């Protein structure tokens, strides 16, 4: 599981690559941007597999940021990942975009409007 | 289930008020009570305004009551069927066997004409 951090429109953009499962989910918590309180876009285009632990990690990250009044946006769910979100109804918890840069721009607009 | 005689039109018309459900659990009660009513008058109306469910045993009880009434040269008419109860009559063609009226007064009046 590799984690790549960039920014776009002044918003943190974190791209994940690899499988997000019981063995790799814990590494997400160690990443400072993901475990921090700032609004973030998580690009899942490189995630080819997701199970309940991976989903749990994402939900945990979103909840923590929500508690600090920050949004977590997801981008580019592939078919396997989307199916897990679908079965578990986890899609109800997230705003999902098909392009990470658009997601970052929207988040940026929302913050400057506040 | 109550029964009384209405004499407002000059003749004796029996009115049975049916309440709630009429199904496999209680249709026998109707069949047991009916012959006694038939002895009092052969013009009978079932007031179904309070009836909210009828299944095939209930319907079967209705048909048997009708047969007994016809055997005595009388008639059994139905009043105020709820729309879902009316559907079971339409479904099973029992609609053709009975005279059905939208309200109790119309049913009472029908015996006079």
């Amino acid at each position, binding site marked *: 599981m590799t984690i790549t951090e960039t920014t776009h429109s002044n918003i943190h953009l974190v791209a994940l690559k690899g499988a997000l499962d019981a063995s790799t989910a814990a590494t997400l918590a160690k990443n400072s941007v993901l475990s921090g309180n700032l609004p973030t876009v998580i690009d899942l285009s490189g995630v080819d597999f997701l*199970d*309940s*632990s991976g*989903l*749990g990690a994402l*939900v945990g990250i979103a*909840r923590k940021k929500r508690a600090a009044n920050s949004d977590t946006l997801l981008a580019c*769910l592939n078919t396997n990942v*989307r*199916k*897990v*979100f*679908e*079965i*578990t*109804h*986890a*899609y*109800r918890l997230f*705003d*999902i*975009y*098909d*392009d990470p840069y*658009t997601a970052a721009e*929207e988040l940026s607009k929302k913050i400057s409007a506040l | 289930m109550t029964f009384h005689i209405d004499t407002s039109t000059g003749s004796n018309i029996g009115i049975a008020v049916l309440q709630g459900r009429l*199904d496999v659990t209680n249709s026998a009660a109707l069949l047991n009570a009916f012959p006694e009513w038939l002895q009092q008058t052969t013009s009978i109306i079932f007031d179904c305004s309070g009836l909210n469910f009828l*299944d*095939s045993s209930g319907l079967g009880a209705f048909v048997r009551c009708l047969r007994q009434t016809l055997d005595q040269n009388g008639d059994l008419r139905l009043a105020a069927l*709820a*729309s*879902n*109860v*009316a*559907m*079971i009559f*339409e*479904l*099973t*063609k029992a609609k053709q066997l009975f005279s059905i009226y939208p309200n109790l007064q119309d049913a009472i009046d029908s015996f006079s004409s």
Partner: protein
Amino acid sequence: MKTLIVIKEQNHAWVRNAFPGIHPLLLTLCNKPYIEYLIDFAILSRSEEIRIMSDGSLGEVEAYCMNGSRWGVELTYSNIRTTDDITTILQKNSRFCRDNRTMVINGFVFVDYDKESQYDSIINTMPDGVIASAENEGCLILRGQEKNPDAAPAPSPPINLESIDSIESYYRISLDILKNKSSQFVLPGYGNEPECFIGRNVVISKSAEIEKPVSIGNNVQILSGTHIGPDAIVGSNVIIDKNSTVTESIVLDNTYIGEELDITGKTAFQNMLSDPGTQAVLSMEDPHLLRSTQNNGTLSALLRQITHAITALTIIILLMLPFLLIAPLLMVQGKWKKRLTDYHGAGDKKVISIATGTIPNQGVTGKLASIFSLNRYPLLFRVIKGDLSLIGNLPAAVSDNSSAPDQDNMTHYYRPAVFSYAEAENWPVIGSDAAIVERYYMVHSNPLKDIGMTMKALINLPHKNTPK
């Protein structure tokens, strides 16, 4: 050109009540699933890609339509939030819409199109904006046109939209298609005659009469003496028993119609008869009149029940010694508090009463009881009885509306159990987050895995109970 089909649960919520078990997007009008009409229309408008979006579950639709290769179009799916407006939805699909003319079909609407019309040229000359609308937020929107200030305003579009918002409109639209518009659409079925659509594996008795216009699905048995039509739509997996009549009516999939019955101006679905005119609905309890043709309960459910029962028995035996030693001590100490509460049962069992016990985690006995999760011990006997599963969902209290099983098709996955998957996985047990992992395992578990998860739960629970 690309098409976005946006349908929110609130647009078709009535279908869940009227026809439970059918996904609204797969509801058939004249034996053609609703979503196929929209796909056909998108293809007629020369869309290369179609994306279906909803704030609810799309799994069944995806299983049916897959990637769209059946129609020669690329089909993708995505989820939106209930509160999203069209602008937000377009942003969420910015990559999809980029550099393309995009048509948005919004709402649970029926698009009254004609397969002979040239929609691609009509749509390409129209300006951006709402080009047709219907009740209940239904609309057809175009986006992505290059600005042409010289273009004159387009004439009214020949596309009619109608919101399918009740059984009444569903009935009216379906029969209208059959009677008046069958040539406008590609309808399923074979037939030498126009206005007569008959599916595969349809057995029609010699003495049965079929009068057109009529549409019959697949795997249908029409027994002797029956009269079908005119204006009859009969779904798939239907049996129409002897001497019955179906006229001006719709019989949906998986329905059995008994003998000597007269179905006129009605909608029949499994054991429910509806009159679109009076809006009366009758839930039949007589199986010889109207019932479903499907059997509930499968072999795998039985296998799971047996595995759970055997495992429960094993745990009962293993923990019997600690239980017999510690429980009486706890009761004497007054630490064993029990409360009888009603919970939703699985499948046919509406309500089950469970004695929930809490044991304070203090003292030697309390701690020991915690390690072995002895408060759950009596519930293991219910697993053998069949009321509960060994591992599944945490039972939802009848009095607590917020924890009631979901309305959608996942309801049949609900299995109240002694332990929950959320406890095994160390997810937060309260709240909707627990439901997420429980749903994951409902689909991804098997009886063997359940045994492993139960062990995990037994190990993880004491850690939960230990104050940090």
